């Protein structure tokens, strides 16, 4: 009986602290949403977020926006122009990330694109350049740019950010 208890306790000691490994039966994993993994030299949803974060950082830190204080001017974010070589970029997703950040700041009253009465309008544009190497290398630069105008058409602010993506040489061995 005593031997049995000793053996049981030993078994508990050995298995109790062991960590179980779950999953592993499939090749699909849920990624960390903030991870910047890329399979191709193309933008991912995390890149959209990074772009929106960085360019709105610059916009919100500008002297013009600081001077607004609690005035909360009426702002229209214009339709985003896609000047990249990839027509399938989800510009609406980038647009939504930008408006989410600006609205969250509480600094402006965000108006619809069809609104004709506003204080400022922000025109947004995404563009790209791309180079290909002979061994399958690829270098792509994406740029997001904001240009802010008053109702009278005067440009009062411009902010941009660049995201370079590089793809290494293919390894056939």
């Amino acid at each position: 009986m005593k031997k049995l208890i000793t053996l049981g306790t030993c078994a508990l000691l050995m298995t109790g602290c062991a960590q179980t490994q779950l999953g592993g039966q499939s090749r699909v994993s849920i990624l960390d949403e903030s991870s910047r993994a890329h399979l191709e030299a193309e933008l991912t949803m995390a890149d959209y977020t990074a772009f929106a974060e960085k360019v709105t950082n610059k916009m919100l830190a500008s002297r013009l926006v600081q001077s607004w204080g609690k005035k909360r001017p009426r702002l229209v974010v214009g339709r985003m122009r896609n000047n990249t070589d990839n027509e399938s970029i989800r510009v609406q997703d980038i647009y939504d990330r930008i408006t989410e950040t600006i609205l969250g700041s509480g600094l402006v009253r965000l108006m619809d694109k069809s609104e004709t009465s506003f204080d400022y309008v922000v025109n947004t544009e995404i563009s790209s350049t791309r180079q290909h190497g002979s061994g399958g290398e690829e270098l792509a630069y994406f740029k997001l740019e904001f240009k802010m105008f008053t109702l009278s058409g005067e440009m009062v602010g411009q902010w941009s950010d660049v995201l370079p993506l590089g793809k290494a040489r293919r390894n056939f061995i």
Partner: protein
Amino acid sequence: MNKKIILILLAFIIIGCGAKRGTNIDHLSQRTIDDTHPRATLILGHTDLVNNILITNVRVAQVGLLPKAGIDVQNLTDNRYNLEYKIVWRDKQGFPISISNVWHRFVLSPRKIKSFQSMGKTEDAYSIQFTVRFPDDLYIESDKREVESKKMVPCPPPLPPICPKSMRDRVMP
């Protein structure tokens, strides 16, 4: 004698498995975490970065209605580092501000100091959590595991070179 063994084993189970399961503190003090600044928690994502990469010169200031943070990251070595950082803003109670943000990759050449800035995107933003780590995503991890698994497979001993008959004739007449 058996009773003694059982008691010792039970003590192992209770103490060994029970350590650090959860404590009601902000975080456990480690040499990778620096919380000496009242409005910033600085985290190095790997012990290899301790004494090689320094997060320093934290500034938090009010810009208009929003807070702005500036941080420097210094390379203390002659090596080139590929890293990524993330800034999470928190309110006064310590809750993260619910604006999604992502990891940003950067390269730190030898002895270089790089500065980063971020705007707290709401008026509630108060403190930051700044993390620097080696780039990490699903594909980097799976590459690492593949390399490790290849290292673990023992190689068969090299076979003696087989010479063509004509060569053998020349060496051993």
